[in-house]
């Protein structure tokens, strides 16, 4: 059974087809990248898959279940997690608390136990805390655990967001430009982290502008332009595809050729 299958997904904003009839599949442990020029509809596509936008057409199927337009918290229960292009960090919480929040589904329990600080509540908190500390060590943020997240550098916050998403132990992880705004060293670290996560069996769906990184780590690439899928395949195939080259260089005929 396919892990994640996107079938004919589309959405219209005020008459404009932001994404139109996009289909692809993601298997366990695979890194699938979605690329395309600015405004091609990559983030919109992510927002539809992760339940933030209601698709106007098509289906999203996760582990055989139709999850089209399902609320993000319900998708989280079914093993889908994501990060955001414009960081969504809990700024006023500590780095550790941000990571712990990724364990929400495992640590939550009866409110009354939490209000009265019952042993069961303390145990759930402690287990989540231990898991979070291990994850922070994995992304190199363990020494910043007690700092307020809002004070961290951009690159660190990017890694924190990935740690929080990994805390859910997702079956599929959507990463929206994880390396944007990071320097070369940070990009390489994120690069390694993604490969490692994929090797452990988690499927990665990636939007990224750093083409070197995309070509290096992807198993499969989906190319969008003006909301439509113009090409799909292994990195080597896609980079030779005339329609793709045209889309990036902006040649009219090239885009029509595949069109």
């Amino acid at each position, binding site marked *: 059974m396919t892990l994640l299958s996107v079938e004919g997904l589309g959405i219209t904003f005020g008459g404009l087809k932001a994404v139109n009839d996009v289909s692809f599949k993601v298997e366990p442990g695979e890194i699938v990248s979605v690329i395309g020029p600015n405004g091609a509809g990559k983030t919109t596509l992510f927002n539809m898959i*992760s339940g*933030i936008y209601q698709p106007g057409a098509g289906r999203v199927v996760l582990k055989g279940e139709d999850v089209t337009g399902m*609320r*993000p*918290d319900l*998708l*989280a*229960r079914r093993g889908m*997690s*994501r990060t*955001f292009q414009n960081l*969504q*960090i*809990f*700024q*006023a*919480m500590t780095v550790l*608390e941000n990571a*712990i*929040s*990724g364990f*929400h*589904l495992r*640590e*939550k*329990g009866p*409110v009354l136990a*939490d*209000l*009265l*600080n019952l042993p069961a*509540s303390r145990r*759930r*908190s402690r287990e*989540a805390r231990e898991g979070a500390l291990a994850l922070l060590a994995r992304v190199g943020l363990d020494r910043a655990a007690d700092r307020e997240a809002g004070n961290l550098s951009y690159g660190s916050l990017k890694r924190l967001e990935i740690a*929080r*998403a990994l*805390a*859910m132990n997702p079956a599929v992880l959507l990463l929206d430009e994880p390396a944007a705004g990071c320097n070369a060293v940070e990009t390489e670290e994120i690069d390694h982290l993604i490969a490692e996560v994929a090797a452990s069996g988690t499927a990665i769906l990636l939007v990224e502008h750093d083409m070197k990184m995309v070509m290096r780590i992807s198993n499969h690439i989906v190319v969008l332009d003006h909301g439509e899928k113009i090409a799909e395949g292994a990195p080597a195939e896609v980079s030779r595809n005339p329609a793709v080259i045209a889309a990036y260089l902006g040649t009219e005929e090239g885009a029509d050729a595949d069109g």
Partner: protein
Amino acid sequence: MPKLSAKSATLLVLAALIAVTPFFFPSGYYYRVGALIFVNGLAVTGIVILTGYAGQISLGHAGFAGIGGYACALAPTHLGLHPSLAVVLGAAISAVLAWLVGRPILRLKGYYLAVATLGFGILVAMVLNNERALTGGPDGIAVPDLGLRGLLKDWGLELTNGQFWYFFCGLVLLAGAWIALNLHQSPTGRALRALHGSEIAARTVGVDVARLKLQAFVISAVYASVAGSLVALQNKFITPDVAGFMHSIEMVTMAVLGGAGSVLGAIFGAGVLTLLPQALTVLAEYEQLVLGLVMMLVMIFLRDGLLPSILRKLRGTGE
């Protein structure tokens, strides 16, 4: 020396203040002022959970205080309940009502939510004002004695009325603060603070945002309700003013002024805003003017609230 957790430190400071301040009271009157601060502090601790943790605003929480207060007036006479059980009944009614009202209105955000909660508060105040046969209308209604002071006397602990309510309200406030601090460090509290920070990110880690907002709303309603009950029992009398719009505004202002994010800060805010009007009475007709000015200045220069700002200054600029 083992480091004291923020929770223990807050509770210790609070307990010490409650225990030690009476030694400096020039007269018995101050026990009454102290008890008033504690009751306000309790209501405001509920606001900390709703506003400081979860980032949701309510301008109608006095409505729940009204329900708690009138439960103590009506349940003993009409249902034959002991006043202490009337407090529990009031809290239960407030919780159910908060759940029913919160479900539709907590979908709203920012000022829409503020106006919707405002409407709820006004509704409760109107019912209390107009159902004269039951509530006595705007003139108010008598509330039976709690009876605990007499019980303590039988056990050999003799307190004046002022002293009794001072220590009783102080203990309830401590319990309320303990619960709010437990919540802060618990899975539920983290989820509330997470949805405050970024609702969309909270959703993606699996937080059922609607459900958690509702939980915070219900919990804070219970705080307001118990505070309202304590006011009624202490005064042995209650008027619809307890549910009035001004009381709702007062709660939010106390929390924000003191620092809505921290329990101790909000209680500090309750103390300042309870004491300030008393201290400013020397200014006669300028009292409200100065009060308003102080509030504006605090918000402009100490936006995190009085206590957090002061603590930061004390720790120095190192942070």
